[in-house]
């Protein structure tokens, strides 16, 4: 475990910043934001063969790196003033990478550290949730994220806890939702969709990372990253359905959601784990359903004070994503009911 090393003040603008997990959706957004801010971003990822495809047209420096290996990390971090941990993967990988990073950071005290955590750490908390709230997430993903934070405790790392990171190209919170809306499997969820949607545009998360690197006062803080207004999920889903032409929006009764989560989701999830998506319908898992009903709003005031980055209103960002989705997948077949 790393010792409590003092971090240096904010990074210089042209500094080399390594992004671990740079081939992922979140990592790419951070790389873009860093480049725009004048940093020299370096994408570090396990499988360099994936890089050209996943990086799209962005032209960043790539480094192959096994983030679970402290020595490999130290090699990649040599000469870097900052590192951003955006590693995504299974629970064991994320935790191992965080521990390795803590170890590497102990040996490189001048390297500033930003860790991308998640709102999942708060578990099923409700109401306005500040950073001081207990970390009670119990899912495997949440438990892993909590363990990652614990591994980096004392390193002076800035922990960013974003809501749901979405944006054009984001399959999890744009592509998947739109596909389910288009299939009529999501829509107006009634009482089951009264939860708050804490969307964070990937571009805004990138801006938050840049702001965190610039502000020495952010060191050692855990900071929620969310928009100041979290719309209800029903509002998001209805807007989303309209934006891609999946109208009239379906009203999903409770019994159908029950069937989705209890009957269809477990086998679908199991098959996809084993064989990949392969054109199979996406499962509406119990955790996804729970999210739609969770009345949680991330308290954004600390982020306002320490980071002050610009934020995209969620419904505006949703429209942007719908444009991407239509361009990529085509518009939905409109249905009507006349009687």
């Amino acid at each position, binding site marked *: 475990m790393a010792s409590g090393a003092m971090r240096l003040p904010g990074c210089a603008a042209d500094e080399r910043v390594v992004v671990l997990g740079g081939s992922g959706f979140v990592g790419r957004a951070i790389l873009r934001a860093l480049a725009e801010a004048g940093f020299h971003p370096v994408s570090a990822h396990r499988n360099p063969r994936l890089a050209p495809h996943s990086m799209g047209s962005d032209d960043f420096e790539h480094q192959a790196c096994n983030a679970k290996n402290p020595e490999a990390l130290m090699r990649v971090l040599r000469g870097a003033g900052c590192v951003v941990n955006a590693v995504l993967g299974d629970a064991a990988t994320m935790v191992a990478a965080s521990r390795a990073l803590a170890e590497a950071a102990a040996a490189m005290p001048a390297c500033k550290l930003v860790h991308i955590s998640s709102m999942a750490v708060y578990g099923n908390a409700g*109401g306005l949730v500040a950073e001081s709230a207990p970390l009670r997430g119990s899912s495997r993903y949440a438990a892993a994220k909590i363990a990652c934070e614990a591994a980096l405790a004392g390193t002076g790392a800035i922990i960013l806890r974003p809501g749901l990171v979405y944006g054009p190209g984001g399959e999890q919170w744009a592509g998947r939702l739109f596909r389910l809306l288009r299939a009529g499997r999501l829509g*107006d969820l*009634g009482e089951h969709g009264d939860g708050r949607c804490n969307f964070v545009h990937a571009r805004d998360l990138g801006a938050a990372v840049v702001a965190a690197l610039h502000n020495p006062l952010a060191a050692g803080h855990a900071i929620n990253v969310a928009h100041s207004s979290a719309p209800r999920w029903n509002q998001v889903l209805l807007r989303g359905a309209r934006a891609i032409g999946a*109208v*009239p929006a379906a009203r999903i*009764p409770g019994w159908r959601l029950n069937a989705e989560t209890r009957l269809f989701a477990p086998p679908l999830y199991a098959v996809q784990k084993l064989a990949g998506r392969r054109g199979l319908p996406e499962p509406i898992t119990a955790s996804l359903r729970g999210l739609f009903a969770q*009345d949680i709003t991330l308290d954004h005031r600390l982020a306002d004070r320490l980071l002050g980055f610009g934020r995209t209103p969620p419904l505006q960002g949703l429209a942007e994503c719908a444009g991407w989705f239509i361009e990529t997948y085509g518009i939905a077949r409109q249905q009507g009911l*006349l*009687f």
Partner: protein
Amino acid sequence: MIEDANTLESGTRLETDLCIVGAGAAGITLALQFEHRRERVLLLESGGLRPERATQALYEGAIAAGSPHPPLARYRRRVFGGSTQIWGGRCVPFDPIDFETRPWAPGSAWPFSYADILPFYENAAELCETGEFAFSAPAAFPAGMQNPLFPSGLDHFSETSIERFSCPTNFAARYGRRLKAARNITVLLHANATEICTTADGSAVAALSVKTLAHRHLVVHAKNTVLAAGGLEVPRLLLVSRDRHPHGIGNANDQVGRNYMTHIAGTIGEITLPAGAPRPIFYQRAADGAYCRRRFALTETAQRELQVGNFIARLHHPRLHDPAHRTGALSAVFLAKPFIGFEYASRLHGQTRLSIAARVAHARNILGDLPGVAAFAAHWLRHRTLAARKFPSLAVHPRHGRYSLDFHAEQAPNPESRITLTDAYDALGLPKIHLDWRPSEADFRTVGISLAALASDFAKSRCASLHYDPADVAISVVRDGAYGGHHIGTARISLSPRDGVVDANCRVHGMKNLFIAGSAVFPSSSQANPTLTIVAMTLRLAERLMQKEKEEVLF
């Protein structure tokens, strides 16, 4: 959280910041506005989570001899969610003219304009789950609404007005989970407010007496109290509260319970479409999923010109009892009357008793139209019974191609149409109410003149022909009884206590901390069903209460 008053000890004293009496559309809406705020809210509900006969019987009362008003325990529910448990879901906003001073409609003006309530309608539409606040066909259907029956350019009627339908949303089922989860809100079931006790000078509520049918007696002390128990129970509670107000609270000028309005509604005439005209469409779903229906709305210009009240009409299936429609589905619905709830059956069928010959004719209709009956049944099962957003009503095209006209008109305020207390008492010891609903000549005139204008517009545009017997107008107004469920005007808004019960902020005249939410405060009834405006007005009240908190630091 949700608790039961019967689990509390008699004599329990409950302290709260805001006490709301009645957990129906208004009460639940108001409580939700305080969700996650610091004020403590106590929402009193007379009923439980499910209907109970003994509780529902507390609604019983007397009706004036010969009045066509339905029994007082009908068309409303004394249960968590209130009458949203049975409402039809039709949502329509009031019109700007409803708020104005109209010389031909004395006593109907509001002390504020439509613009004052407009900002609250959007949120109200969301709470009622009726989609966007878009009540014209072009706004709701930018690509065009399909209905060839409606030409543009009628002289007296707008062809673009639409009504939207809620799921219909049962507010208890829809929002109960949120109320239960809110730490600052307590829903107290089986808690009947039986008397409002005032301070020594009578200018504020000191306590609320609460009883249960299991003989618990509680006392509520609230900084602010809102009565949201509906247009019949609110005046009752005001009238029985006489500790320092000998005529009841807010009743120094004998205004409580007066001007009771419903709507002037009925079905009349026969509409025939031109030969070869495409079949009209009853309902179309908007992009947000809500069912929408076009109607003929008497324009504000026409109302001024004709000096009548507000009026709308819709295309309707022919009256079911007459088997001449030759339509199996309509006959099947008619014969299924015993299996349809009172509130729905009454409007569908009226009180008609049928001869054996007519019954045989209905049976013949069914046997001769089995595919039509099967298609109707399948549609009903899929889009009504199993659907979360339900198909709003019976919408069947008659085989003979002749429809009827369903109208829904404003009832003018009439001080003699009123609620008083009787000498009979309910199980809680409260005097029962006596209801004397009186439509006036002005109401019959509104319907008669509007129908004539519509027939004239139809004839001129040649889009359809409307034939009806003018002598039948008065009969059609009262044939199905007073429009159930719309209890309006019994604690009306007024600038002066001489003319009403509450001020423009819905605060009872002369009382510092007593407010009323719901259609009891409406000074006019409009053509619109009241629920959407009840919710909008409640949102407005919530804003006023929060403002009051800021200004007076009363919470």
